[in-house]
């Protein structure tokens, strides 16, 4: 192996050495923790991704040893490579904190905030992002943009209102399948993910769009509403699959397989297989193998992020008895700042109350009380 050129970069006062060509985001992830900027659109396994959502903006206080001038604007850390001697400020920069709060507000502007009925709740990057960087009330007083939800084939549902236009699913279809049938139509604030005419996404690998979607815009219809993810127990498992690596995470309740996904790392990205290739999985593994007997179970999956899913590993016989914990308890005492503005009826909560009648924005507690009082 030829000698690698290493660059020294300092992020939030922590210095590390990384190979030339590394992005600021990748370098920050090596350090880990809060030093790593949030990334809603970048996906290291998808070529060309990143740069769009602007959540990963950082301040470059010193360009490099050679040219120490600071960069005039905040830069997207996912698409900016490090220079030797570069100094970067992430959460130590007020400018970054301020801009990021702005970006979160923009991303939530037209988002329905229907987390209580969203399958992604608990593993939604937007939810995490707004907990960590957002404000709790909205200043937007206009009608939110709405789209009809529609099916993309028998296994995938598109909930366009939730989409943040990260383009990940488009890159996935481009790079994993031989024929892309969905894409971004229209432009500006009307832009949407669609197929234009009713078409189903049925390539063998298209199911991966569900795993890359950072929000609940693309969801698994074979799982929908069956359960909240934090009540499920993730298990690593594999099978001898002729199409893909067959290495997956099963989301079980007791012995029942509720959902199958690819294995994800601490950044929410698909893990590599031992031979170093991205561990995308095929549709058969994802949608059709819903029996424990289909799989060789390896053991419980370590969920390393501070995610609500991690809270699901409470002691006891998970899945055998109906959980009685409140969301708050499951959620580590954190009251969710859900800004309810729901113009839909929840299938989760059984329709004792028409959610549209609640005047949003409401707090999570308000919501719970109303349900109980109804």
């Amino acid at each position, binding site marked *: 192996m030829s000698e690698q050129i290493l660059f020294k970069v300092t992020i939030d006062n922590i210095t590390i050495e990384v190979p030339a060509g590394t992005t600021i985001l990748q370098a920050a992830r090596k350090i880990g923790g809060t030093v790593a900027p949030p990334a809603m659109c970048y996906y290291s396994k998808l070529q060309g991704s990143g740069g769009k959502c602007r959540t990963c903006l950082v301040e470059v206080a010193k360009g490099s040893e050679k040219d120490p001038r600071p960069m005039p604007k905040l830069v997207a850390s996912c698409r900016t490579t490090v220079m030797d001697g570069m100094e970067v400020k992430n959460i130590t920069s007020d400018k970054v904190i301020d801009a990021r709060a702005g970006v979160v507000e923009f991303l939530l502007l037209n988002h329905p905030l229907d987390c209580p009925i969203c399958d992604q709740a608990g593993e939604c990057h937007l939810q995490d992002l707004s907990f960590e960087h957002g404000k709790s009330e909205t200043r937007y007083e206009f009608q939110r943009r709405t789209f009809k939800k529609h099916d993309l084939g028998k296994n995938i549902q598109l909930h366009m209102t939730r989409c943040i236009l990260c383009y990940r699913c488009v890159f996935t279809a481009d790079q994993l399948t031989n*024929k*892309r*049938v*969905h*894409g*971004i*139509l*229209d*432009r500006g604030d009307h832009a949407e993910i669609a*197929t*234009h*005419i009713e078409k189903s996404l049925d390539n063998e690998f298209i199911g991966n769009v569900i795993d890359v979607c950072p929000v609940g815009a693309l969801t698994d219809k074979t799982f929908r509403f069956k359960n909240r993810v934090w009540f499920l127990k993730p298990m690593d498992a594999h099978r001898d699959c002729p199409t893909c690596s067959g290495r997956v995470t099963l989301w079980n309740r007791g012995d029942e397989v509720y959902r199958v996904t690819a294995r994800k790392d601490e950044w929410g990205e698909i893990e590599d297989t031992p031979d170093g290739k991205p561990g995308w999985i095929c549709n058969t593994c994802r949608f059709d193998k819903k029996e424990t007997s289909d799989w060789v179970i390896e053991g419980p999956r370590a969920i390393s992020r501070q995610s609500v899913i991690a809270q699901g590993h409470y002691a006891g016989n998970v899945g055998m008895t109906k959980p009685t914990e409140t969301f708050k308890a499951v959620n580590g005492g954190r009251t969710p700042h859900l800004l309810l503005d729901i113009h839909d009826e929840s299938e989760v909560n059984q329709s004792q109350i028409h959610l549209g009648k609640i005047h949003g924005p409401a707090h999570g507690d308000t919501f719970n009380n109303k349900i109980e009082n109804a």
Partner: protein
Amino acid sequence: MLCVQSIEKKRFYMSIQFNEQQMTECKRLVARYPEGKQKSALLPVLHLAQESFDGWLSTETMDYVASVLSIEPIEVYEVASFYSMYNLKPVGQFVFEVCQTGPCMISGSDNIITYIQQQLDIKPGETTKDGIFTLKLVECLGACGYAPMMQVGKIYKEHLTKEKVDAIITEYRSQAAAKN
């Protein structure tokens, strides 16, 4: 050009297809770009298709363009829906595209827009019942010094006044009548 040949085989399956002359033009457009970069001709070919097939791009038309350029239909939908000059819905024979941006607005475009609405009895985005006129409000067309203005097909109508609007409507009405 490889792509165009393979299309010609497919042509007879479709009800929408370029005639000889349009096909020649299409080939000329494709030839302007490097080998294998025929997608670059998409914008001009869509213009050609829109002109050739009733002034708008139906799904069928877009699928045809995709096959002509050997690209996926979604790539055509993505592009056609991005640019404001492509009509994805049927339009009248003559489309009045009136500019409403700042410089035109300060030069009195509001009055012209209201006047056209009254004369044609339609709102922006609508087509007259006889199918002759469609009214569209558009953003700056690069004629700010000659405001108020509108575009009708390839032509810019500038320095609009009520009298000019009357004359334009009469002119196109008689053109439409002559065609039928």
